[in-house]
């Protein structure tokens, strides 16, 4: 198994995961987005007579090709980073197969990249963000992302260190609790952002955020499971090739 093979596989699987995430996002996310845009337009200042709203990219394009492109490109990027993480962890986190390693790394990635930032700065539908605070919100979001990834890596490193002395279960619990405490402190200390306007339906906000988290869950589970399946299959093929008797 080479790092190059894993990287290429990760990016291809990432594209597939992006397509799966797009389908989920299209089915469950577009409804809330359209409702949020309707709210935004109903509460925007009315246009002067004869003035037209200039639409740079149509809603149809945004919700189909635009969403698909964003999902697939995001998937390819995540898939590449995921593959590098698998290449590093493979054979270094205990006696588990490549397939199980891929699954665990995907779970860790979902938690660090998607779930932890979501806990503090969840995805917001259109009409719920103040453009003036975008810079601050962007900074805080990426800070939370870095904290999430660092906490997950820290949990794995600490568990691995403690494993010989305390056993797999206890070491893993200790590492995970440590990471949860770090994330909890960050959530408690970082400034809150709430710019959801009055009158915005709570159910709509809930549906949008659930769709957003679901999109990430579909992305990461496809990535982890498909990558694991393909890696195990190629390992077996290589093993069979090695086991073939040499015929002259």
């Amino acid at each position, binding site marked *: *198994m*080479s*790092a*190059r093979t894993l*990287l290429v596989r990760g*990016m291809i699987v990432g594209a597939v995961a992006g397509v799966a995430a797009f389908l989920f*996002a299209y089915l469950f*996310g*577009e409804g809330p*987005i359209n409702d949020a845009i309707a709210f935004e337009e109903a509460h925007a200042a009315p246009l002067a007579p004869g003035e037209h709203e200039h639409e*740079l*990219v149509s809603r149809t*394009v*945004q*919700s189909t090709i*635009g*969403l698909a*492109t*964003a*999902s697939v*490109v*995001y998937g*390819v*990027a*995540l898939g*590449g*980073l995921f*593959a*590098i993480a698998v*290449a*590093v962890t*493979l*054979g*270094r986190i*205990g*006696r*588990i*197969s*490549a397939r199980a*390693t891929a699954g665990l790394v995907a779970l860790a990635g979902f938690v660090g990249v998607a779930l932890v*930032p*979501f806990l503090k700065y*969840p*995805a*917001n*539908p*259109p009409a719920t*963000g103040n453009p003036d605070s*975008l*810079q601050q*919100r*962007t900074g805080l*979001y990426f800070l939370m992302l870095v904290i999430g990834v660092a906490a997950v890596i820290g949990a794995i490193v600490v568990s691995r260190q403690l494993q010989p002395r305390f056993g797999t279960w206890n070491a893993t619990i200790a590492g995970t609790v440590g990471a949860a405490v770090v994330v909890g402190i960050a959530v408690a200390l970082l400034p809150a952002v709430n710019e959801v306007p009055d009158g915005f339906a709570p159910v709509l906000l809930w549906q*949008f955020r659930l769709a*957003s988290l679901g*999109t*990430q869950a579909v992305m990461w589970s496809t990535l982890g499971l498909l990558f694991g399946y393909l890696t*195990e299959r190629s*390992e*077996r093929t290589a093993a069979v090739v090695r086991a073939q008797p040499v015929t002259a």
Partner: protein
Amino acid sequence: MSSITALPTPVTAPAPIPLRQILPWAAFGAVLAVVLLYFVGAEQGVTALISGETVHEFVHDGRHLLGFPCH
């Protein structure tokens, strides 16, 4: 034969890939990923390499649903 088990593949950890062999591919993959993520998640938000709003508007729905802060 005792070596034949019911498991299709016995659980043996794969051999670790040497870090020195991973490094160049990790650097290449990471740079590529950061560029891609920037265009999906952040271009024409706080910073803009391309003027206008077209990139932002094109990936608009994806940016919202993938959780990036967006206008």
